[in-house]
């Protein structure tokens, strides 16, 4: 299993750091390049390129922490904030553009109306990704 390029999809859900750590462990042997992308979902009531300060600042903070961690472990890192209407398709697009071998995503344990839910993005990525996908679900609270 050759893994040279790993995409970490950060989403500000508190699981991002775990996803970065996992990516570093997996990419350790081959010294893979790590792309960390934060997708900001923009509500339709705003243009997709709207500048939403607090959201961007939060995303920058997550990316900075992730970048520092990966660099400290001697990885080549690239980070980016992407604004989109839907997280799933945006992740797939970045994965394709950079021709990555693996997508790593973290997700928290969530229930909606009493039953377990994965949201929209994770199933979309699982269905559409051209490469391997690793999902890390957080332990139940």
């Amino acid at each position, binding site marked *: 299993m050759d893994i040279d390029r790993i995409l970490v999809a950060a989403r500000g859900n508190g699981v991002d750091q775990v996803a970065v750590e996992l990516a570093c462990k997996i990419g350790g042997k081959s010294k893979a390049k790590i792309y960390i992308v934060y997708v900001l979902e923009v*509500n*339709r*009531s*705003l*243009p*997709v390129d709207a500048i939403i300060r607090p959201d961007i600042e939060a995303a920058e903070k997550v990316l900075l922490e992730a970048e520092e961690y990966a660099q400290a472990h001697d990885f080549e890192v690239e980070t980016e904030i992407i604004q*989109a*209407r*839907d997280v799933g*398709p*945006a992740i797939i697009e970045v994965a394709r553009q950079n021709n990555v071998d693996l997508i790593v995503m973290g997700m928290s344990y969530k229930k909606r109306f009493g039953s377990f839910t994965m949201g929209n993005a994770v199933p979309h990525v699982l269905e559409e990704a051209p490469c391997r996908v690793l999902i890390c679900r957080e332990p139940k609270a």
Partner: protein
Amino acid sequence: MAKSLYIVIVGGGNIGYYLSKALLNQGHEVLIIEKDVRKCERLEDELGSCCMRGDGCETAVLSEAGLNRADVLIATASQDEDNLVSCQVAKHRFKVPRTIALVNNPINDRIFKKLGVDATISVTNTILEHVEQEIPAHPLIHLLTMSGQMEEVVELLITRDSPSVGKSIGQVRLPADTTIALVMRENERPRIPDASTVLRENDRVIALTTMDSEKILEKLLLS
């Protein structure tokens, strides 16, 4: 390129699909609102993230669609009443500057405009107009409907038994919102008439009128 608009289309059927495709190509931002999940998925596969699942008559759905910043709403559902409600909610609740509705029943053309829809498109009327233009001696032909208004341009053929034959335009008591713009006569250049211009058999008259006055005009000039 001209200013890019945010256009919301209600209904992801054939018209909604082809319309979005063309508008996206022109560089506009487009969102389709469609009730059917499978249609939504197909549209997203083809056109990208430009579809939302929901009922385009519901305030909550339209609010989520960001209608507050929409420049145009186009209602393309198959039922006239659904299109009316989408346009009215868009207009009155979200102040969308331009609303366009598809209508099936041609009578609704006029009613929708009266009820505040900016423009209507009636397939039935479009076909009818083409049929009228194919018939050489049809007495009244719709040439043009002014967008967003109740005004239209019609062509009338004065026949031998028209009540207006031999009368001057001043004598024909036209409705206040109606103007005869042009009189066309065989072997003569079309002329802009005045009150003294006398109408003759076989004259073709181009008039600017309104949907409400069309019937009166027809009565005065034709029978």
